């Protein structure tokens, strides 16, 4: 099984977000991690490779920023190699550009499966997996919480609102990983040290099979804003009986919720 896992390096989910004086997202004090949903994708790739008794797991990340922290986490978990498609030559990268960049590198290579996280927790878009499947022209199953491969076909459980769907799909295909798919392994200290010594291949975006003149973002950012802070609430004082009676009355009469 040759499996390619698309990786994004994101802010840690406990990060507080602040803006720089120029109005962009301030990255200076933030801890970077592998996108949590991508960890499920890496783990599933490793499980499938182990189950098949061979193959290669390749991590690929298209980014303007060096994604080595995320890629080395994947390497420490057991991936065979890691590639950074350096997008610095493009001033703004949207999901269309990411998909084109990744597809440019993937074209002409042999793979059985492309795995992604179902969503990156920074932009929260869930846009890349389907765009990438569209460019590669392979079938897709998104938000998968369980899968099995037999005789070149996959049976995947796809989470939907209030339930799930079962999808049968031919390989090669693209799958996006949902929480619940597996429990990602914690790499041992030895593996982490080994991963530090492995190289992350860096490839300039215009050397990955696409030309810069043909690749333009479809959307643009006007501005970032911080949401207005919630006004401090109030602590209800008194004995529980009185508090609860008062609360229910306020929810009913003032807020008209029920």
């Amino acid at each position: 099984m040759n499996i390619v896992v698309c990786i994004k390096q994101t802010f840690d989910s406990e990060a507080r977000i602040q803006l720089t004086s120029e109005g962009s997202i301030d990255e200076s004090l933030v801890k970077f991690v592998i996108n949590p949903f991508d960890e499920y994708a890496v783990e599933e790739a490793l499980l499938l490779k182990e189950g098949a008794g061979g193959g290669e797991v390749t991590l690929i990340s298209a980014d303007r920023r060096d994604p080595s922290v995320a890629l080395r986490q994947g390497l420490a978990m057991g991936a065979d190699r890691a590639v950074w498609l350096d997008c610095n030559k493009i001033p703004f990268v949207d999901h269309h550009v990411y998909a084109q960049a990744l597809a440019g590198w993937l074209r002409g290579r042999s793979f059985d499966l492309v795995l992604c996280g179902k969503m990156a927790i920074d932009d929260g878009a869930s846009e890349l997996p389907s765009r990438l499947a569209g460019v590669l022209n392979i079938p897709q199953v998104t938000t998968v919480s369980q899968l099995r491969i037999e005789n070149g076909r996959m049976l995947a459980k796809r989470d939907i609102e209030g339930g799930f769907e079962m999808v049968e799909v031919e390989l090669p295909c693209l799958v996006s990983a949902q929480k619940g798919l597996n429990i990602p392994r914690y790499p041992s200290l030895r593996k982490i040290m080994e991963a530090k010594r492995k190289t992350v291949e860096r490839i300039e975006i215009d050397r990955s099979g696409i030309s810069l003149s043909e690749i333009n973002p479809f959307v643009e950012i006007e501005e970032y804003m911080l949401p207005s802070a919630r006004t401090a609430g109030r602590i209800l004082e008194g004995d529980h009986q009185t508090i609860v009676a008062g609360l229910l009355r306020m929810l009913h009469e003032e807020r008209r919720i029920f």
Partner: protein
Amino acid sequence: MSILVFAEHRGGILRKAAKEALSKGRTLAEQMGLKVAALIIGSDMGGLPEQISKYGVDDVYVADDQSLAIYQTESYAANLQLVIKEMNPKVVMMANSAISRDMAPLVAERIGAGLVPDCVEITLKGEKLSYTRPVFAGKALVRMRVNTPIEFVTLRPNAFPAVESPTLPRVKQIKAAVPDSGAKTVCVDLPEGQGPELTEADVIVSGGRGLGDADGFALVRELAGLLDAAVGASRSAVDAGWAGHRMQVGQTGNVVSPKLYIALGISGAIQHIAGMGTSKCIVAVNKDPEANILKVADYGIVGDLYEVVPIMIKKLKGNG
């Protein structure tokens, strides 16, 4: 020119989030001097055009075929693409849902269109639409524009009101596309009696670490049942195995925006607050007076949830 709304339904019943998308499509179209068309895809959808007509559309495109009875990525995408090709809309709009997250980026990429997913505000600036969406699970917002001839947008459920404005739309049956595909959805399982869907619910009751154990969720469910609420959970409750992953509220779970969010025994980690901070009203019950959740709650109760919640339940049942 027009705005095309993909109107999602389940078994011929229009989804709440689809009503919101149709309503927003109507108001935007009025501002921009455009028409609104709806597209429905499925099988046996007899009553749907009438349900859609309440939200003020000019045309309803119907792609009806036995093979479309349940969502299939490739055939649904092909039918959406077919209608886009026929009517050349300015904007393609739909609710942010499991279907649109699967289908919208695929079709957008194929026709060379930009997409703004999970949008919470759309304004017209001159001739251009300006879209606002949360990033970092609502810790920041971004305003963006789309620079392709056709613009795709998906709307966050509960962010836009559903407003009725009845019309008599023209109903146009299209010859449904049924393409070959390497993927086939073989069945759908929607267990009954689970209450409203988390991302669409008006009221959510969520439990956290403070419940003490998995059995604590029985109390959460009882209160939720009385309020016709969906049940949510914090990440630590999910990671402890007390609740299923699909119930998780927060940056790595579901981002929700109900009218009322009741947090029981949830401390209020940043990633949790990011996932529910836009709720219209937040009630929190927590033992720890210093808990973060009490700083964002409109109504905070410092106390043992096992004392407070039974009183709520009793009073809601009307005896006490």
